[in-house]
């Protein structure tokens, strides 16, 4: 067994164990940590495969961005408050296990009996080194053969960003909602509330705001005042929470 195989085996086994951890952990944060471990191991494997650029991208994009986002979302949606939903229904799980094993068997059979190996391309390790390194070569390929695809991918990312903004926007923007939202932001906002919104409040609504229900009210300058500490501390800084009795 060569050193290479040994290193690979270690990385692969850790990656697979961490992957199992992703789907088995009860706590989503633990899943995310396991996912990070998988990703880092895969990045190392990519380096072994002479794909240094991809390894770096894997580290940057998956580990540095995607998983951070996932962790963020886990915090934001407050998983702890949810009922236990570690597993699905038992029948489904048994079925899934069987299907998974069957697929694994099939794919393993296909891999192990694989005989057709395509013609070798020109990018041997030496050729890549001559051309200036992995990043240079992949850049050449991307910006010659796949230049259109690159452009489309860029557009896709832009669209994805806009889509995320739209999706993450609060669902409705009726006046009470706007007031609520503005109110919540304004508490953390030294410049005070959005005066226009405050001015647009119907008298009755403002009165109800002054009442006991929310504990939040507006003074005549449009600044939001908080009656008690509950109203202040019961919300998160990222605006994900609601006020008490505000349903």
């Amino acid at each position, binding site marked *: 067994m060569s050193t290479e195989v040994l290193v690979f085996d270690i990385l692969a086994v850790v990656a697979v164990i961490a992957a199992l951890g992703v789907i088995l952990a009860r706590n989503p*944060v633990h899943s995310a940590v396991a996912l990070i471990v998988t990703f880092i191991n895969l990045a190392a494997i990519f380096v072994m495969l002479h794909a240094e*650029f991809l390894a*770096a991208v894997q580290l*940057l994009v998956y*580990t*540095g961005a995607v998983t*951070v986002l996932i962790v963020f979302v886990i915090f934001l949606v407050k998983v702890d408050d949810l009922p236990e939903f570690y597993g699905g229904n038992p029948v489904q799980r048994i079925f899934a296990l069987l299907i998974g094993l069957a697929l694994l068997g099939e794919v393993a059979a296909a891999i192990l009996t694989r005989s057709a190996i395509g013609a070798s391309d020109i990018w041997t390790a030496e050729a890549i080194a001559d051309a200036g390194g992995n*990043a240079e070569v992949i850049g050449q390929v991307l910006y010659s053969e796949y230049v259109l695809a690159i452009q489309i991918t860029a557009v896709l990312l832009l669209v994805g960003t806009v889509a995320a903004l739209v999706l993450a926007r609060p669902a409705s923007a009726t006046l009470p909602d706007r007031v609520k939202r503005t109110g919540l932001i304004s508490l953390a*906002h030294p410049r005070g509330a959005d005066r226009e919104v405050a001015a647009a409040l119907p008298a009755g609504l403002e009165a109800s705001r002054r009442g006991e229900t929310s504990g939040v009210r507006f003074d005549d300058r449009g600044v939001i005042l908080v009656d008690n500490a509950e109203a202040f501390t019961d919300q998160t*800084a990222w605006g994900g929470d609601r006020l008490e009795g505000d349903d």
Partner: protein
Amino acid sequence: MVDQPFWITVISAFVVLNVMLIGMAYMTWFERRMLAQMQDRVGPNRTGPFGLLQPIADGVKLLGKEDIIPEHADKRIFLIAPLITFVTAPLIALFIPFGDPVTIAGQEISLAVTDISVAALFVIGISSVGTYGIILGGYASANRYSLLGALRSAAQVISYEIVLGLSLVGVFILSGSLSLVTIVNEQRQALDFFGVEIPNWFIFSQPLAFVLFMIAGVAETNRPPFDLPEAETELTGGFHTEYSGFRWSFYFLGEFIAVIVISLLAATLFLGGIDGPIKDGVWWLLLKTFIFLFFFVWLRATLPRFRYDQLMGLAWKVLLPLTLFNLLLTGFIVLERNGDTNVLGFIRDLLFGWI
């Protein structure tokens, strides 16, 4: 690339990492002394000459402290999180070229521990992994302030990481490489600046990128004036509120290592690294790094902390557009210089191309 046996790489990595640890230890001493001087105090000066043994005393003290784990903490993650920060920070130093290859006993040894073609990307990638130490630590503490600190920190680091990465792209374009060794070698050529020979340091060709890199670097390391995650007045210590003893020291030291690493990177990427006017060598790199370290301390001593919305607004509304502008400008100039395009032709095509 230098062809050397694996074990030499291991040894040099070991050496570099240990030097980093020592440097980091004395960074604490340096900062305390400098701060004291700036604030017209004396600073630690009792332990050893000039207080030089102070870091060791601190280390002993911290190791001896009780390792407190909060009751509702997510225990495993609570234990691991500081290590992530502590481990990832010095790794970056392994990519930095500390000098030209030297030959010892017939064996050529590279003074850059690893010289891979995409080193710069790895630097950014690894530093982004370091973020997890903060996020997970804050989460695992089961403390509202810690979580808030962690979230703030994560948002801040991610935002500034984009600026950090993109500000470097101009350098990559100019040097045509992602390898730090190549980037340094590129800067060691002379540049003819209106008849005056100056070194081809990228600080001259990429001044905007340098400024952006420094700002983002300060934010990336959670140093003042961007130290929101640990804003004592607001969050009672931020993500490490619940940490104590040597686990706390891991965070603390990780931060100092990050400062050193960012200084090293800035010196390497923008100030020519080991390049110097008399004899190239690691001493120049250390000198430049030291200047940056002083700069970090200086910042801490003089600037007040940013407000959080200002901090994020700065990253997304000011710095990011600036980096993109810098990128556009650099790309354009390079194309122009290489003769791949020319402004007149471009404008002509734009206006009259349809004919």
